[in-house]
């Protein structure tokens, strides 16, 4: 129920921004559409609503994850640009395993998406039960678990553990 309410508010805000400047017609139509969306999709939106309003998690997310992510995204672009422009294309592609200790859906999703948008790596598949991510790496340095963790996982996993996992932050 709480998840449905949040879904309604969220979709209504997005609708308002999309149809900016608001007037009465748009608001009524938006309320109707958000209601339908909330009824159909609401139960899938959040499984753990209490996590969303934890100030420590929000603080970590906005001031730690977002800047690091933006910086990595810019680095990734120069990395790919270099490999594309270089006449010999210095690539050694391959698919490697990355072990992760994240277990929550949100945490894994963010980890996979962050890995895709950071230098030279692309998430191909996730095995949630074993905690393994299969990653296409454009410049394979090594295939053993320690190397892959150090080169790929260590940038994001510790902070995502703090943000999304139940046991990581003292309540």
């Amino acid at each position, binding site marked *: 129920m709480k998840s449905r309410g949040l879904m309604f508010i969220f979709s209504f805000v997005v609708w308002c921004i999309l149809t900016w400047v608001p007037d009465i017609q748009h608001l009524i139509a938006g309320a109707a559409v958000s209601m339908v969306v909330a009824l159909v999709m609401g139960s899938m939106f959040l499984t753990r609503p209490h996590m969303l309003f934890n100030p420590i998690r929000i603080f970590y997310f906005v001031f730690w994850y977002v800047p690091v992510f933006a910086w990595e995204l810019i680095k990734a*672009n120069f990395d790919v*640009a270099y490999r594309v422009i270089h006449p010999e294309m210095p*690539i050694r592609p391959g*698919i490697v395993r990355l072990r992760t200790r994240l277990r929550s859906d949100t945490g894994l999703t963010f980890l996979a998406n962050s890995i895709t948008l950071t230098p030279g790596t692309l998430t191909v*598949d996730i095995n949630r039960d074993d905690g393994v991510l299969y990653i296409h790496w454009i410049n394979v340095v090594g295939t053993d678990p320690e190397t892959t963790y150090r080169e790929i996982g260590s940038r994001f996993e510790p902070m995502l553990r703090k943000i999304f996992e139940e046991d990581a932050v003292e309540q």
Partner: protein
Amino acid sequence: MIDTIGMIFIGLGLGFDVLGCLGLVRLPDVYNRLQAATKCVTLGTCGILFGTFLVSGGFTETGFKALIAIVFLVLASPVAAHAVSRGAHRAGIKLWDRSVVDSYAEDKEGEA
């Protein structure tokens, strides 16, 4: 002044988009091409949208839509890349013949 900064952002974005497309042509197999397509095209298009946001005068009708588009793009493009690459691998598309390792295929053999 703001217009100039916006134009610079649009120019940079276009540059990265061009590089992404170049990568799409030059790199050898579907997975490498996806790398170029997701990273460069995401940042390039975000740059163009942010430039649009600045040029259109900040928080106006167009500016808000550009910002929302940035958020959705950053959320959706890695998911799309993941879906395409996983689908390609499941459909049996081989990696480039000079690829080093394919742990995914090793792990999948028993399960099929």
